[in-house]
């Protein structure tokens, strides 16, 4: 039987499949549909230091093969998370990746200090430098090399836990921000967060989303994610976690071939809870029919023309 285990630096995941931040809350709901014990890990909804109510009004719009969201980081704050959610999450028996977002560099450092403490049972800190739906912080940092470098470097001083850096695709050169993350000590980069988009209601002549813009996710963005991963795979020395529109085992294989050590499933797991089980089964079938012993052998095997 194929070995689904993958490594992301020091972190060993039971499977390359992770649930993406913001699309599985803190796992409670998806746990009713999916055996989380067999997946690689679960990324929490983006946490901030203080609780956030998120954006008001309409938060989603449907688009061709995708959706826009502008949740705006609604979350209970890091302290309530530790108290009310983490113990339950630990019971899933899978890796817990905590997605953190800040207004300013200090926010990131303080959260890294809290979550990075060895006594706090979280496995990985995922720095969200890419949320397009809040006015301050986040994507602003992720859009420049300096922003990424500064935050990752700072965070590294507060924790020895693996730090993954989730980057925004809304940049001219993804390799530059990815390299900045690597140089600052990131354990891995996560590619990609959502692309900034808009939907318009022609009746009211208003943006459908009350935040005016939102993040585009789903299969529509898959070709962009694949390209960015393949680009980064040529220059990075740290692992890449792929994300963006993954809907099938075939997609997972494409992302791994492009350079991903593991992948995150977001929108399609939202729309089809239980999808990880199906993808896992299909990955096993594929590996058996292709006589692949370790799925991780696929990573970065792209043959360029």
């Amino acid at each position, binding site marked *: 039987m194929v070995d689904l285990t993958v490594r992301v630096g020091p972190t060993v995941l039971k499977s390359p499949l992770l649930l993406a931040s*913001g*699309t599985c809350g803190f796992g409670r*709901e998806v746990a009713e549909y999916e055996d989380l014990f067999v997946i690689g890990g679960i990324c929490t909804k983006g946490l901030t230091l203080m609780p956030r109510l*998120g954006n008001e009004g309409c938060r*989603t719009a*449907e688009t061709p093969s995708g*959706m826009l969201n502008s949740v705006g980081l*609604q979350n209970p704050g890091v302290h309530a998370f530790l108290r009310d959610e983490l113990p339950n999450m630990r019971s899933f028996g899978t890796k817990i990746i905590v997605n953190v977002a800040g207004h300013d560099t200090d926010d990131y450092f303080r959260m890294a200090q809290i979550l990075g403490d060895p006594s706090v049972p979280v496995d990985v800190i995922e720095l969200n430098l890419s949320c397009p739906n809040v006015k301050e912080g986040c994507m602003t940092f992720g859009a420049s090399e300096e922003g990424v470098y500064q935050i990752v470097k700072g965070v590294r001083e507060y924790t020895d836990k693996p730090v993954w850096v989730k980057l925004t695709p809304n940049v001219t050169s993804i390799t530059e921000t990815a390299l900045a993350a690597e140089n600052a000590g990131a354990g891995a980069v996560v590619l990609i967060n959502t692309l900034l988009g808009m939907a318009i209601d022609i009746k009211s002549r208003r943006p459908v989303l009350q935040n005016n813009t939102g993040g585009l996710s789903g299969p529509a963005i898959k070709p962009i994610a694949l390209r960015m991963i393949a680009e980064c795979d040529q220059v990075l020395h740290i692992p890449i976690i792929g994300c963006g529109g993954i809907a099938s085992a075939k997609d997972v294989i494409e992302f791994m071939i492009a350079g991903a050590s593991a992948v995150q499933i977001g929108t399609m797991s939202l*729309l*089809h809870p239980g999808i990880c089980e199906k993808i896992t089964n299909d990955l096993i079938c594929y590996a058996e029919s292709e006589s692949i012993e370790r799925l991780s052998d696929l990573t970065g095997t792209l043959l360029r023309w």
Partner: protein
Amino acid sequence: MKKEYRIPLLSNVAVGSATHVLTFRSKEIAAAANPGQFVNVSSDLFLKRPFGVLDTDPEAGTFSIGVRRIGAGTGYICDAVPGTFFEVLGPLGNGFVFDQTKRIIAIGGGTGIFPLRFALKRARELGIPSLSLNGFRSKSDIILLSSFEEVADQVRISTDAGDFGTKGNVVNLLSELTKEEMKDAILMTVGPEIMMKNVAKWADGAGLFCQVSLEKRMACGIGACLVCVCKVKAEAEGEPFRHVRCCKEGPVFAASEVIW
């Protein structure tokens, strides 16, 4: 473990000009659904569409929904032929609460009447007296009248045009209620937001407990993505309000909680 079902459409009956009643086979949903809960149904578009459960037949293992043609998604669903397979999640959310209910007044408008039909049926099963008040634009828009008469003790209709029942909207029907009819009654209302808001206001004035079923754009329908939140009153001090999930904590809320 819960799952996304892939189930066939058994029948699709047009009721009124732009509304269809669709019946699906699903033992599980038929057995589990409660009035006010909804199902999230696929179409040929990207996101599923939420619809309140209209009826269930646990013995036959079927359930039905009423669908008004609005845009492309409901268009696809209304045009589907029996035998077509759909991906369906459900039953989802929290429905109406019937505990300690002595008398029910169900107030519906638009597509809101569908979940109320199920609530009235349940009330009948529970032996709770019920009164159904439905508002329509005009006589020719009235649908499912006999179906409501089957399950409600009394059915009253208002039409904006005044060509059937009371002229005006459902609040006019409410204001015609006798003391007797109002006594100990619990209100359940589903319909356009403005209607529910007015019903809630009326209920507040009348000192009656009122449950409303809110509608928000949804993605997952299971509480995982937070795109469907409703604004409700704060619990803790200092909080201006709370954002709760329409699909998980709702869609039915106590009207007194809702910030319109």
